[in-house]
């Protein structure tokens, strides 16, 4: 696979320590699930930020997506917490 652009937002961005990066995962990374596994194995703060996916939502190419969504060359994958627009807790 060629490069994949990764974006982090809100609390996930703070945990990851960066807002975006471009990565070059191996060819066997074909969906979001395997991308997450690879990012975790790579280590560092972005990997730690993705340790618990229960509170993380995903978008692929700016559309909501599941862990099973395919990821290919030049895709944009975003990780962020559940949306909180419009309300205060």
């Amino acid at each position, binding site marked *: 696979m060629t490069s994949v652009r990764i974006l982090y937002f809100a609390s996930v961005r703070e945990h990851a320590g960066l807002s975006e990066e471009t990565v070059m995962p191996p060819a066997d990374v074909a969906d979001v699930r395997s991308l997450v596994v690879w990012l975790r194995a790579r280590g560092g703060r972005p990997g730690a930020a993705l340790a618990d996916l229960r509170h993380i939502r995903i978008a692929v190419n700016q559309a909501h997506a599941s862990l099973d969504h395919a990821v290919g060359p030049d895709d944009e994958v975003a990780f962020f917490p559940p949306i909180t627009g*419009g*309300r205060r807790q």
Partner: protein
Amino acid sequence: MIRVQREDFSPGTEIDRLYAGNSGIGGVAVFVGLVRDLNRGPVLRAMSLEHYPGMTERELTRIEDAARARWPLQDVLIIHRFGRLEPGDRIVLVAAAAAHRDDAFEACRFLIDLLKTEAPFWKHEETANGGHWVEARDTDAVAATRWSSSSPTAGNPGPSRPRHARDRG
């Protein structure tokens, strides 16, 4: 149409502009969302709204398209702000213009309910005790499921779809 902006807006000006020149509009239903302080815990000083530029516009357009597919609307306007806001500031405006009020009211409610769960915005609150991210509320997801039979992801229901075929609220 949709707009995502840092600047404030004038609801009166926006509504005037929405129906100007369109005599097919019989009414406009409007929702204006504000930054509030619930007085639970430390006093809210400010709130910062972070969003996902690009995806935000796509999601809001998708929500508008879903409303237009479901109700016979003359026009739709969604304005959403981002950046640092203080209590009392306007955050969002949703307006649905239709020939008849039922369509306008229902579409307006649909638009704001979906916006709260689908549009990628996150709130960071600033109080005297410091800052924290606001957690998502289950009630937002429940409000959105009211419309689950016509989720934007379910595709275009088509103009012949019965208007009251939605799930119970």
